[in-house]
């Protein structure tokens, strides 16, 4: 296990004041805020910053960390000596147990047993949260997905380390981005015989090369020829739940939308599917094609710039 230099992560000196630590944390929390940051690894960096702050903003944890880590530097191989934390009392503050479960193995090894079992009380386990990336097909049909989460596990000595937890999940049809699905009893185990917490999964979709999703509505581009758009036509289009015949009205324009009601993501009410027309010009790369274009140029009084003045 690698030693983590929490001072280096927050960019502060080892003797920084509590105020300086808070200031540095807030600056980084803004920089790596996962909702707005443009940094490529914002989410991972934010976790690291949260972890460093959870230790350095807490007087007891900071004192224990300082005592343990004064001879170590970032990345160095590290094993905590047995009973290194004797004489310190850790309390969970700021970040909940479920939140700190997302921190590194290094953190779990050092502070993972805080607020652990004891006292003979009974309590429900904490809820856990994670994001899940699904494909659009699942939204239409539902389906099974295997997901793997990192969860804290306690060993016989009460130490906590992160372990992979694999779940086979049946996803109901009708999920869409930003929704939450719940897996009852798959959060942290209860204490003293209490029930386990739940696992909440926030749904996101894998980007799809053809379909774009907004709530339950689905958008796709439908390439058409100039004559299909001008004269009207019935064409076959593939859609997420199969293929459909769609009628393109005469005098359609590029960017025009055809709405297929209730063919979006299922639900109450179901979404709609929109096919956005994109007119593709045939290339003038053969004599006959050039001839046809020249005929149109001669015989059609068409000026797409007539309303632009000049």
């Amino acid at each position, binding site marked *: 296990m690698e030693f983590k230099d929490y001072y280096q992560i927050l960019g502060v000196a080892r003797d920084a004041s509590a105020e300086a630590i808070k200031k540095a944390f807030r600056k980084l929390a803004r920089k790596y805020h996962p909702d707005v940051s443009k940094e490529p690894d914002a989410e991972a960096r934010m976790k690291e910053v949260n972890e460093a702050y959870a230790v350095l903003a807490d007087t007891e944890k900071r004192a224990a960390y300082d005592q343990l880590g004064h001879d170590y530097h970032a990345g160095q191989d590290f094993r905590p000596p047995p009973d290194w934390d004797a004489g310190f009392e850790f309390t969970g503050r700021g970040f909940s147990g479920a939140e700190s479960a997302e921190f590194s193995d290094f953190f779990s090894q050092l502070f993972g047993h805080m607020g652990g079992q004891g006292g003979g009380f009974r309590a429900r386990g904490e*809820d856990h949260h994670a994001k899940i990336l699904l494909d659009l097909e699942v939204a239409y049909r539902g389906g099974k997905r295997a997901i793997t989460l990192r969860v804290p596990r306690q060993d016989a000595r009460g130490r906590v380390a992160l372990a992979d937890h694999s779940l086979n999940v049946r996803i109901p049809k009708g999920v869409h981005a*930003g*929704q*939450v699905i719940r897996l009852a009893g798959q959060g942290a185990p209860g204490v003293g015989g209490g029930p386990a917490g739940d696992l909440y999964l926030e749904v996101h979709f894998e980007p799809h090369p053809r379909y774009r*999703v907004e709530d339950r509505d689905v958008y796709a581009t439908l390439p058409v020829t100039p004559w299909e758009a001008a004269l009207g036509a019935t064409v076959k289009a593939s859609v997420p739940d199969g293929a459909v015949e769609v009628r393109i009205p005469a005098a359609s324009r590029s960017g025009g939308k055809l709405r297929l009601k209730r063919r979006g993501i299922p639900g109450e009410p179901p979404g709609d599917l929109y096919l956005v027309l994109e007119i593709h010009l045939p290339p003038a790369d053969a004599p006959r094609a050039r001839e046809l274009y020249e005929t149109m140029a001669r015989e059609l009084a068409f000026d797409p710039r007539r309303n632009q003045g000049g």
Partner: protein
Amino acid sequence: MSDELEALLLERAALTLEELAAGCCVEVSWVVARVQADVLHDNPPTDPALWSFSGRDLLRLRRIRALERDFDANPELAALVADLVEELDRLRTRLSRAGLATD
């Protein structure tokens, strides 16, 4: 690998007040104060016993809690930031719907 698990889609009125509080790792009183400060989008009935919440409410309140904790923000400011983040999400979705990159 464990047996197959049934996932429940949290739509409207899917969570009780206690479930929402547990999902946000906070006390029930924290949620009551935020709801009464109108930080959620829908105004709930006056009696907290009649309250129910959606999965989106859960995500919004978790975001607000993190903003309050990380920046010592008051609930109204955290709600304002949550509004802006949600609006940003909507606009990014619309940009991507229009085939435009959002970077």
